[in-house]
């Protein structure tokens, strides 16, 4: 069994995943009615006429969550190879990882104290 054959299968899965929506929506285009009226094409807002712009500035809080996400996602990138090799690495690697994680925990506590996780 050649290892690269596995990725041929992954490629087939990607192609199939794209093909299914394309085929289903094309099939649907032949079957479904198409009678656009201008009322039908307005933006939905509980039956009222839409007020103002929809692409508004969103809450800054989302940006902070994204920032936290990036920090801890990078942490997992370091954790995974460490975890795979842990049984060979031993106690020294454990202490190293403890130092690394506690540095990040300091960041988490700082964000906590700054009330980043509070939704008000």
């Amino acid at each position, binding site marked *: 069994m050649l290892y690269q054959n596995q990725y041929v299968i992954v490629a087939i899965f990607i192609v199939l995943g794209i093909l299914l929506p394309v085929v289903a929506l094309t099939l649907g285009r032949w079957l479904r009615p198409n009678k656009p009226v201008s009322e039908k094409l307005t933006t939905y807002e509980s039956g009222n006429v839409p007020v103002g712009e929809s692409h508004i500035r969103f809450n800054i809080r989302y940006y902070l969550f994204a920032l936290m996400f990036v920090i801890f996602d990078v942490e997992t990138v370091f954790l995974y190879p460490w975890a795979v090799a842990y049984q060979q690495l031993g106690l020294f690697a454990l202490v190293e*990882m403890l130092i690394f994680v506690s540095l990040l925990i300091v960041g988490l506590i700082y964000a906590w104290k700054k009330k980043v996780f509070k939704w008000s």
Partner: protein
Amino acid sequence: MTGWLPGPITWQSFTLYFLVSVAFLLVILGYVTYAIYFERKVIGWMQGRHGPNRVGPLGLLQTVADVAKLLIKEDTIPKKAQRDLFILAPVISFVPSFVVLATIPFTETLYFADLNVGILYYVALSSISTIGIILGGWASNNKYALLGGMRSAAQMISYEIPLVISVVGVIMLSGSLQLSAIVEGQSGGFWNWNFLPQIIGFIVFIVAAVSELNRTPFDLPEAESELVAGYHVEYSGFRFAFFMLAEYVYVFAIASLTTVLFLGGWHPPFPFLDFIPGILWFLLKFSFVVFFLFWLRATFPRVRVDQLMGLGWKVLLPLSLVNIFITAIVYEIFFR
């Protein structure tokens, strides 16, 4: 599955792989059809109702009828929507949900791609769906959709961190990212399954997984009482169906992943039950996890948005980090 054809790829083997993958896609679609039926039935029974029982015997064709209805429904794209992105969004959220299934081993011989970076592949791809959801919310040019998309993205990235870190304990015990190797490490009785030695990781994983799936009690992005329908409010017909399909395929993926990582995959709970084929054990555990998700939906109320983020960052993340070090210390003391 790939074990049939050693050696370099030829046109014949490529065609065979392709046909088998198409068959698998059809199995997934069949599963989604009956998962929706089963969900409605189970929730109906739990609420003292019958559930769907009109279309076909016992209502078995209800979902088929629903899909047919969605297929012949008019497809409206609002004039103010950004057309290209609006069309692209459901595809982006569906494709990774199917592609992650390539690496799930169902039995020792039944798998598609036994990648040696299995978990990493799953985690990396499954986060792409978030982009599809946020894109759908943005491209709809609708206030509800934008709010739902933003909430959904914030929730999914917040719970992805504990989900990913809770698996680290499992990786440490098996010393591999390959899913089949992780299952092999759990052979010989249920006391070897990872959910017992990794009980903290298991609980964090389940809670974070339910949240990743946007299911009750964490279904805020689709909270119908406050956001109408969330990010897919402007979608109709089959474009909407692809968002739903992605959601249910992820239920399949998460249930399989839970089975593989924590519930011993195809291994029986007691060694003397070895004569029952592995696929049945896999299906049994898989069905239990799927049922568990439906059960939660019938039982729990929705959490408030301010509690939601707090739970992810203040409870689950520290717990999953502590779990890594507990695992490491226990391993140092007892197994070295």
